[in-house]
Every structure is written in structure tokens, then in C-alpha cells.
């Protein structure tokens, strides 16, 4: 789960990390009120889960109320790389002596948190890594031992932080690590991490990704999910407890098991088709789940054909067939279906389908054959 900037900052602030004071606003009036309260100059920042907002016009500095109103109106509703701006974050403009970069990510290769610190903040870290790798200091933290004071010193000295803020930057990293662990984040990134002329260390931006699997332990965070930013179809799938990702194409896909569904998308693409979604009905999917899945897939008007690819392990093919028959009964789909049913109770499942004689449903013997057929039908 990716947090918006202001949600991330509030999370950091809960762990004692200094962030600029600010307020959220969902319309121009609220934005102006917030700006007046915070004072000028202030920053008006689009709240979208995407980097590079600034260059795309999503961050403006307002020197007075008129500017604040004008900029808030301009940014609200803006489209930034496909995301609509629903919320603004208004915060006091910070004085900046230096811009650093700090992040902690769960490094899957090392199976440990990886802490990065760079004195070249404010730019994309991958670019820094390419251009001036020596400007990035990094280390892995042992998850059982945790972040130690010497880790902070080592990073600060190796990154070449100004001598007078070594201790403060180390303490900042310690607090960032505590946030990472206590909030069960997959990523916390502060870019830029600002040193003010008063030599204070402030998080001027915050990018936080939380572990979805851990949200049950963090009910406050679980509520942060920004439903307004989610695709209505994805929301619908979530309500039905289906694992769903929307894609750009026109072939609806349903399978069981994440790996098999990913593979199905690939095989469809190899046959020249464009999948409209990833949908994993899950292990042991029952008839109701199948019905719900068909509803979700067909709620996308772009879908011109649907591929069912089931290899039954725990999932029983006869259950899937029953679910599909039920779905056809309820929804009466207008687009063709290609169904491949194999594995546990495959014979029974295929027989049920054949018997039901659903309109415009084509059986396929293999995954490959099914993919070829659905691509043809979607043309």
C-alpha cells in the first residue's frame, strides 16, 4: 500500500521525525484557508502516488492568497501521469541549506533492510547511482540487532554529510528505521531530506509503502487507503475478496493461482492479445467466487472476450464450471468466453459445461490453444 505524501509525513511525525507543518485540502477554498493559516510563502502540493510531480506542475509555491487560490484550482483535478489530483497538501515553504536523500527498503536479495543515504538529494536516486555512485552510502541492518548508532555515523561519514549534522542525520536515520520497523513498511523514502540554514534536519517529502499483509496490526494505517484514488473496478474486486489488477487490454482473464494467471497473461500476449486484467480466483475457488469474478471482469466495458484458465489443484473444475454456469444465468454475458478446465475433477467440469451449452462459450484443451482462441475472438 503506497501512502500519499502527507500520509507518509504524518506517519514519520508520529515517530518524532521533523516534517514541515501542513494541512490537507480537497478543494480550493480549503486550500486557501490552509495557506492563510500556515502563512506565505507556502507550498501547494498535488497528492498523487507518483514521483516527479514537481516537473509536471504538481507543486507550486504561493506567495500570497491570490496565488494560493489560483494554484490550488489549477492543481486540483489535474491529471498527472494518469492519476487525477483529488487532494492538496499545503505546507510552509522550507529554507534549504542542503538537500540529502535517505531511504530504507526491504532488500529481498539480502533479506534485510537496506539503508541508503546520499548528499545528492532532490533528484532521482537511480540517476544519482548511475552518475555519482560514490555519493551514496548504504548498509544492511540485521533485523534482529536493529539499527545502531554506529550505522548512522558510518552512513553519514561515508556519504559525506556536513560534519556539524553527522549526529543529527544519524539520529534521523535511527528514527526512520524505527518507523520502518514499527509501521512494517516495505519502503520509507525521504527525498529531499533537508538541512535548514538553522542546521535542522527535516523530511521535505515522504514516500512510504506499507506491507499490506501487516495492515491488520495497524488499524490506523489500514484506514489510510485512499479509495478515491483506486480504480472502481479494483475496488469492486477488493470488496469481493478477489486478487485483481487492472490492465490496459481488452481480453478479460481469470485463472487460479497467481503464477498461472501471470503465465496466462503472457501466453495471451504472445498470441498477440492484450489482457484487460489479472484476476486470481485463488486456490480452492468455489462457485460463488467464480460468479463474482465474472461480474468484476465484465464491469470493464473494454472487455471483448474472456479467457478462463483453470488448472485444478485444490480448486475443483466442477465447482468452477458450476460457478460459470451460475454467472451466465445471472449476468448473461454478451462477449465470448474461452474455457480451459484441467486438473482436479476436470472430466466432470468439462462435462457440466458441455451439458449446459452456454451461449458463446468455447472449450479449449490446453492453455496455449485457449490463448490462441480468445485472441482470435477478441479481434
Amino acid at each position, binding site marked *: 500500500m503506497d501512502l500519499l505524501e502527507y500520509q507518509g509525513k504524518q506517519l514519520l511525525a508520529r515517530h518524532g521525525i521533523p516534517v514541515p507543518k501542513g494541512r490537507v485540502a480537497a478543494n480550493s477554498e480549503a486550500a486557501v484557508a490552509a495557506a492563510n493559516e500556515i502563512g506565505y510563502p507556502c507550498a501547494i502540493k498535488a497528492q498523487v502516488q507518483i514521483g516527479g510531480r514537481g516537473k509536471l506542475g504538481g507543486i507550486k509555491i504561493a506567495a500570497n492568497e491570490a496565488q494560493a487560490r489560483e494554484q490550488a484550482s489549477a492543481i486540483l483535478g489535474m491529471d498527472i501521469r494518469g492519476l487525477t489530483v483529488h487532494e492538496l497538501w499545503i505546507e510552509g515553504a522550507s529554507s534549504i541549506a542542503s538537500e540529502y536523500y535517505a531511504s530504507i527498503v526491504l532488500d529481498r536479495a539480502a533479506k534485510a533492510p537496506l539503508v541508503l543515504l546520499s548528499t545528492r538529494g532532490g533528484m532521482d536516486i537511480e540517476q544519482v547511482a548511475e552518475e555519482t555512485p560514490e555519493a551514496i552510502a548504504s548498509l544492511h541492518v540485521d533485523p534482529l540487532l536493529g539499527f545502531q548508532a554506529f550505522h548512522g555515523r558510518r552512513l553519514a561519514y561515508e556519504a559525506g554529510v556536513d560534519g556539524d549534522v553527522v549526529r543529527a542525520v544519524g539520529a534521523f536515520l535511527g528514527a526512520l528505521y524505527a518507523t520502518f520497523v514499527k509501521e512494517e513498511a516495505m519502503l520509507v523514502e525521504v527525498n529531499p531530506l533537508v538541512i535548514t540554514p538553522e542546521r535542522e534536519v527535516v523530511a521535505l517529502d515522504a514516500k512510504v509503502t506499507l506491507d499490506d499483509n501487516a495492515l491488520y496490526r495497524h488499524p490506523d494505517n489500514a484506514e489510510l487507503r485512499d479509495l478515491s484514488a483506486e480504480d472502481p473496478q479494483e475496488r469492486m474486486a477488493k470488496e469481493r475478496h478477489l486478487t485483481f489488477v487492472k490492465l490496459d487490454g481488452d481480453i478479460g482473464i481469470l485463472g487460479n493461482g497467481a503464477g498461472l494467471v501471470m*503465465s496466462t497473461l503472457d501466453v495471451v500476449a504472445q498470441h498477440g492479445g492484450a489482457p484487460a486484467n489479472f484476476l486470481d480466483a485463488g486456490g480452492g475457488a468455489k462457485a460463488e467466487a467464480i460468479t463474482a469474478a465474472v461480474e468484476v471482469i465484465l464491469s470493464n466495458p473494454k472487455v471483448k472476450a474472456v479467457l478462463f484458465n483453470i488448472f485444478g489443484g485444490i480448486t475443483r473444475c466442477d465447482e468452477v464450471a458450476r460457478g460459470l454456469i451460475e454467472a451466465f444465468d445471472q449476468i448473461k454475458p454478451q462477449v465470448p468466453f474461452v474455457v480451459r478446465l484441467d486438473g482436479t475433477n476436470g472430466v466432470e467440469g468439462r462435462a457440466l459445461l458441455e451439458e449446459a451449452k452456454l451461449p458463446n462459450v468455447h472449450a479449449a484443451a490446453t492453455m496455449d490453444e485457449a490463448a490462441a482462441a480468445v485472441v482470435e475472438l477478441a479481434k
Partner: protein
Amino acid sequence: MSVIVDRETRLCTSGITGREGTFHSLNNRAYGTAVVSGVTPGKGGQDVEGIPVFDTFREAVAQSDANTAMIFVPPPFAADSILEAADAGITTIIAITEGIPAHDELRVYTQLKRTPAVRLIGPNCPGVLSPGKANVGIIPAAFFREGNVGVVSRSGTLTYQVGNELAQRGFGNSSIVGIGGDPVPGSSFVDIIALFEADPETELIVMSGEIGGSGEEEAAEYIDQHVSKPVIAYIAGFTAPPGKTMGHAGAIVSGTHGTAAAKAAALEAHGVRVGRTPTEVADIAAEILAG
């Protein structure tokens, strides 16, 4: 021979009294696995169709001489159960549970590294099947028979798909190992490939990877340097968009990292043949084993 589970396996299921735990324990027993006990706190003294249930792993190990644990408890209790099994002297832990928080997995992984005698498979995996010998987990054994192809996979159903295609061409398996789809798996491709390399029964290794992480890239290097047996790879997720979790918690392309294309390229660069579809994987296997 086979790897991880075999006729020496003495299985204790954590969460045996739950619906899934009961179903699959009995299923595994029906296959021939020695399911010697189960653990459910508070239900010690009961039994599940003759399988004795204990309150703690320590008691289960002491009373039933279990050496392998299968973890079926819900995510909030799974990490604790894994650590309990290891503490009690269990040396093979197969964690089926899906949805364990990543920081729990980190702690478990780091802790288990301190006790190298303990092997964790999973979490979020379908288990391990050694056809004809033992099945621990949820792999539908009917599709697989004894043979010389070792399969290791991050995905359950994809494994069945690949295994099925191999079976249709007449090949059986030494073992099928699901290492799971989570960001911090207890065992990696490298770990399992090393076991297959050492297993005399295994003549060909099939690895089925997917987007996210760098386990496939690490395997590529390892295979290049340490593996004499032929390895065929499959990678799922070429069409996955960046930043989206594709079902498995670990299946996500972060920025430019963990793409299927990069993984396939790394494998091929290290001399591993990569099949573009499960069918192609089976075709290559047939070609190699025939040759």
C-alpha cells in the same frame, strides 16, 4: 532419492484442527506420508482421525518423534509457530500459510539462519511432493509420478501446469518443491537447486520463476558455477505492469527491478535455457532427456 521430504519424513501439522489443516493432513497421510502428530494450543490430548494433537511442538516432538512441520495456522500466528517448531528441534518446516507480514518473515529468516540445521520452505507455498514417497502440503499428487525431473517453483498452480505438461510427455519427478511467492522465502531457488544437484535421482532441473526480487538472477549465477545437471527455466509475468502486486506478495516489479525480461536474460546469459511457455518448457525437457 528425492529432496526435503521422503519416507523418513515424520510430519507434525501446526493448526491441524483447522479445516484446511485437517483436510490436507489427512490427504498427505492418505498419500503415504507419516503424519505423526499435530499441534493446536488448547487441544492437546485430542486427535484428528487418530493423529494425536499436542499443545506445543516440544511435546509433539517428544511424544511423536516428528522431524518435519507443516504450518497451516493463520498469518498472525504463523511466524510464532515456525519459530516454535525450530525451537522444538524440528529440522524441516514447510509453511503453507499465505499472508504472513514481511517483517515477521524477516525476523524468522534471520533467526533461522542462526540455526543452520533448520530448513524452512515457504511461506505461502504449496509444499513439497516427492512422488511415491511423501507429500507435505497441498500439491495435488495425482498429476505427478516418480521420475527424474526436479521441479522448483515460486507458484503452486504454475507448478501443476508445468508438471502436467511434463507428465503428458511421460516424465516423472524426483521432487516438486514450492518455495513460495513471498518477498522473504525461507529457501531460495539456489538452496533447492543445490539439493537437486546433489540428488542422484534428479537428472534434469526445472525452475519456475516470476517477477519480483532477484532469486532467479542469483540462481542463474549459481547454476553457471555449481550445477552440472541441465536446468530449464520458466519465468511468468512478462506482461505485468510495474508497481503492481500480481497476486503473490513477492511478485512485483519495483521500478526497473525484478522484471521477467531481466530474469530471463540473466538466466540465458548464464547458459540456462528459458522456455517462453509452460509447453515450451516441457518440449525442451523432452528434447534434453531424449538426447
